[in-house]
């Protein structure tokens, strides 16, 4: 119990970030039109690819004879890059199709006939 409390005290900055980010995350996408659900999901998918930074740190710290760390770290870098690069490219491809039509506001389509 005590160790948990001291851990919270040690990491209070981080914990503040967590709480604030939860609200930012909810606020930021609160008004997304349903057309954009898929690209948004894909974009968010690419953003959580930041986990690659952890993989790079693990890989970079691994000692030359520690094969477990080297191999697992290398795999982590490959998979993390896949997530980042693939995620952003797929999102871009999806959004490419909205190109040139961006001026129109999707949310307020006029249901009137021609």
């Amino acid at each position, binding site marked *: 119990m005590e160790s948990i409390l001291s851990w919270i005290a040690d990491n209070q900055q981080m914990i503040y970030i967590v709480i604030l980010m939860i609200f930012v995350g909810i606020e*930021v996408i609160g008004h997304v039109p349903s057309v954009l*659900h898929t690209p948004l999901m894909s974009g968010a998918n690419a953003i959580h690819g930041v986990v690659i930074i952890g993989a790079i740190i693990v890989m970079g710290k691994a000692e030359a004879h520690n094969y*477990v760390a080297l191999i697992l770290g290398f795999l982590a870098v490959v998979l993390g890059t896949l997530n980042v690069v*693939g995620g952003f490219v797929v999102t871009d491809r999806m959004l490419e199709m909205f190109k040139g*039509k961006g001026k129109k506001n999707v949310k307020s389509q006029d249901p009137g006939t021609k």
Partner: protein
Amino acid sequence: MELSILTLCYLVGSVTFIIGLKMLSNPSTARNGNLLAAAGMTIAIIGTIFLYEEDGKRLGNYPWIFGGILIGGVIGTLAAKKVKMTAMPEMVSMFNGMGGACAALISAVEFDHIYQTYKAVDTAWLADFVAAGHYLTIIAGAIIGSVSFAGSMIAWGKLSGKIKDMSFRGQHIVNMIMLLLVLAAAVFTYQYNVGFSHILFYATVALSLVYGVLFVMPIGGADMPVVISLLNSFTGVAAACGGFLYNNKVMLTGGILVGAAGTLLTILMCKAMNRSLKNVLIGSFGGGGAAAGAKKDQGAYKEITLSDTAVVMSYANKVMIVPGYGLAVAQAQHACHELEKLLESKGVTVKYAIHPVAGRMPGHMNVLLAEADVSYDKLQEMEQANDEFSTTDVVLVLGANDVVNPAAKTDPSSPIYGMPILDVELAKNVIVNKRSMKPGYAGIENDLFFQPKTSMLFGDAKKVLQDLIGEIKNL
């Protein structure tokens, strides 16, 4: 100095993630938002590689790092470029799984590091050396990452048709027990002899993988988008665990941001189907085998020929097209747009009725039709469309099934009961294009096909549309 620059890189990264996500939720800025986030990510990654220091030591193993990035980058780009529009949902799921696996691997390496340091003291507990908070972030990253990885792979398999829905009686109880086992293993890893801790750790990971499979397995294929979105936010949280581990703010912001936004997005998607998240996850899909078996005989359906369809459509005042997954599979969006233009030139009003979850993902149809240059003004969302069906002469259903199934309104025992649908039966005529009489993704029969107003037009959507265009031109 260099560390301050790295801090700045991370700051830039975090801010671009927030702004990028904000821009992604508006159609006019979405593409730039994605590029902005990608740029921020690149800055953060390059900063980490060259500027990161721990205890005054720089990172090493550059060949491994660059090799890994190169391999991942090339495969990722190729996969993302090559994938067909129809297969994008499963691609997202696949990439999400990779991220989850990455988080789990990081935890595994960190745990191995701890184990190697303390394994000599055989009889002591891990808890004697490692702070609970530190252990918690490692094990949470491992569990959440593994669940996300296994779940995403199953979701990928289901969407690409490689894995069928599977559930058995009492699966929820089994799932609960699995979850408890995972947690128990996690506790024992910490509070047991260090000498056994690595075995227990890998057991935790293995159990988490099994749990991930069992978690997604019983959920109906039609609900996969919701599940992917949920697993997406799981991976976000797993990435944030890494942020705690390395006291790394950009990982933390990115991870939690996605965790929160992904959770909200999941709820929004459920709302679009008028169902609760609980209903999707525990779902009425499980154990539905008996009900489906006792299905009544539904009588006969009638077929319509291409030339009759051509006549009916070109002499109509208003035609509504209801696209579904069949359109996506057949890549018929261009043919569909052509038909629309042709009919408009004959003075027919043509509109599209878009169900929020038509296709395999919310917004799937909008993306496809946008690709074929269909004007946004023609796309009617469900509420608008339902107001217009009563004044519509012909509804052409192109490979949609569950989203027009009246059972969602009339049959409380139906797995899709409660989902809002497009009320196509209000129109004067309904023409349904399908490849066969096979039931849709939810695996249930559709009474609509047997109604007197409905005529069936079998065949591949693209071919049928092209032939139809030819027929109309010849009239």
